[in-house]
């Protein structure tokens, strides 16, 4: 029995599966509940690297879910905090955020990204469905697409991300780094304000200028870090 199998066995015996959140050829994401305590967690099983989850194990951040355990053995199994709340996608259905609300959410996501980036990780899938609003905190979830940035790599080995939000380099032109997340966050900011992709309608005023800089095709023309984006926000 491997580490991974041992962990899977414990989750299978000690937890009930409440519902499946996402199922794809890559893997499954489900909500599980501890049989004795009733505490809910998110349980992920997917093919791919779990390195980002492992790096997040000792981290506490109000804008990231707490990772309880992450095991990897060809596949990755992750048990993480179940963040209760509505996704930003649900909130944006038929509604827009005010500039102040959008700025606040973006700032918090910048903080989450800063934590990820500072450990050498890139999220690569920042989008409304991966942001849960827990009270006044925006929580960035789902690091299945995340990867550890490698200096020597010239291009991404696998195209991951969500069309419309993914930066050009995520399609293989360059290796994606933290500036790819800045691109996605710019798109997200624009959608929070206008409900549309920047290519269709750019937010007005200062926020529009920020979105434009976030979504420049050349990574070097974007804000170079989440912190830099926070400064202008």
């Amino acid at each position: 029995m491997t580490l991974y199998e041992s962990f899977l066995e414990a989750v299978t015996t000690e937890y009930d599966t409440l519902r499946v959140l996402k199922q794809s050829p890559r893997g499954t994401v489900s909500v599980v509940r501890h049989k004795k305590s009733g505490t809910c967690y998110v349980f992920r099983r997917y093919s791919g690297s779990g390195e980002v989850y492992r790096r997040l194990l000792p981290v506490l951040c109000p804008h990231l879910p707490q990772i309880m355990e992450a095991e990897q053995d060809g596949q990755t199994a992750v048990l993480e905090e179940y963040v209760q709340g509505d996704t930003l996608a649900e909130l944006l259905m038929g509604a827009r955020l005010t500039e102040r609300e959008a700025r606040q959410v973006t700032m918090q996501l910048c903080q989450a990204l800063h934590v990820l980036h500072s450990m050498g990780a890139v999220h690569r899938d920042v989008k409304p469905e991966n942001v849960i609003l827990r009270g006044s905190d925006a929580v960035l979830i789902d690091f299945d697409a995340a990867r550890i940035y490698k200096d020597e790599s010239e291009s991404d080995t696998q195209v991951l991300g969500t069309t419309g939000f993914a930066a050009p380099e995520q399609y293989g032109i360059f290796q994606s780094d933290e500036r790819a997340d800045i691109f996605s966050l710019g798109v997200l900011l624009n959608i929070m304000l206008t409900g549309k992709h920047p290519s269709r309608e750019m937010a007005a005023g200062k926020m529009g200028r920020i979105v434009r800089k976030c979504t420049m095709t050349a990574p070097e023309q974007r804000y170079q870090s989440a912190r830099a984006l926070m400064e202008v926000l």
Partner: protein
Amino acid sequence: MNFEEKRCPHCGALLVENASFCPYCESVLIEKRPAEMPKPKRRRRITAALLLAAILVVTLTAVGFANRGKIIDAQGAELTYEADGQTFHLALSFESQGGAPFFGQPLFTVEVREDQVRGQVSSSHVFVDNGGGVDKKNEFLALVDHYEVTTTPCDGITLLQIDETFLPTNSNAAIEAIPSYHTEQLKEGEGNVIWTIYLKNGDTLRLRHTAKITRVPVVTLTENDYPMATVDDLNALLDTLAHEADRKSVYILQLTAVTYEGGLTVKNFCCDLVGSEGGTTFTGTVTIATRGIHPSNITNVRFMGDGTGIGLSASEGAFLHRCTFENWEIGAYGGLGSWVNATGCTFRGNGVGLWLDNRGGATCSGSYYGDSVYEDNGTAVRIAAMPGTETLDFNNCMFRGNGVNVENTAGYAVDLSQIVTADN
């Protein structure tokens, strides 16, 4: 199993060696730390400014404190302080004589009669030795700049106040303070006596101890409650009380205005005798053997003898107020391990008016012996033995026609500086 294993420290479940979480009992097995998150520059500037200000304040305060010296708070009745290469062990005590080495007395219970709304508590003393019993009070006092003694209220009511602080000359304490209680509301409680001693080198020493005020019930008995017309009536009452009285209470006997032919003995309970304004007289010996924790008060009673015997004999503490002792071999005698205090009394025509013969008993609870008249006695006052070091104060007493005014064979400290004599 092909992996290093360990047990969950909380539930004992078998886990992999590097497990971060026990899926069985949900215990987190690794240290988690809040992530460092960036703040906008503007906030960072404000934070930096605040931080700078805080550092400045802390620095200035630290410099200030450094100049002011250390504050050493014992949070209790004892502390050890080192200065000038010497060790000083300070101990607070309500006892007038410290031991060797001195011991702190954190709590002292003061039993207060419920008819006594104010009065002094035993003095609070600061004793100083080197921690091994060698007295260091003089060396320590040389370091002292000044000191203050305060009290803290109990439940919002100030039970204690400090009447006086001084450097005692008749005690081995370094400093002494006299607290008094004020209990108009018949309140019980605790009052802290806090000593703050400021040293010349800037250091401050703080010690504290507590006086606990407890109330003693007082029961007043009159002739309406019991027959008191004759000395036999009184002795019958005293016998009854000796067997039935609550030992924790004080009984006040309001005597009638008669001459009791004979004497009586008060024993086994605490009792005050209060004579009538119309004149209450005993012709026999009154013996105080209360074996109680409270001294007896004998007030406004005449003791008329026939030239023999003792007017009042006390083997427990007794305060005599406005009493008259006339024509006894001994007017009032305090012996067998106790003392008698007399104020405002008259001792006339006795062989010895007041004889203090306390050999090894309790120290006197009151040192003021003033306002009395000693007249035509063979010896007005004889101090044969008295423990303690307080000065007996006979100021405002009149001595006239006595063979000897004060025969002080004990060599006890007395203050006769303001007495009135026939020669004045």
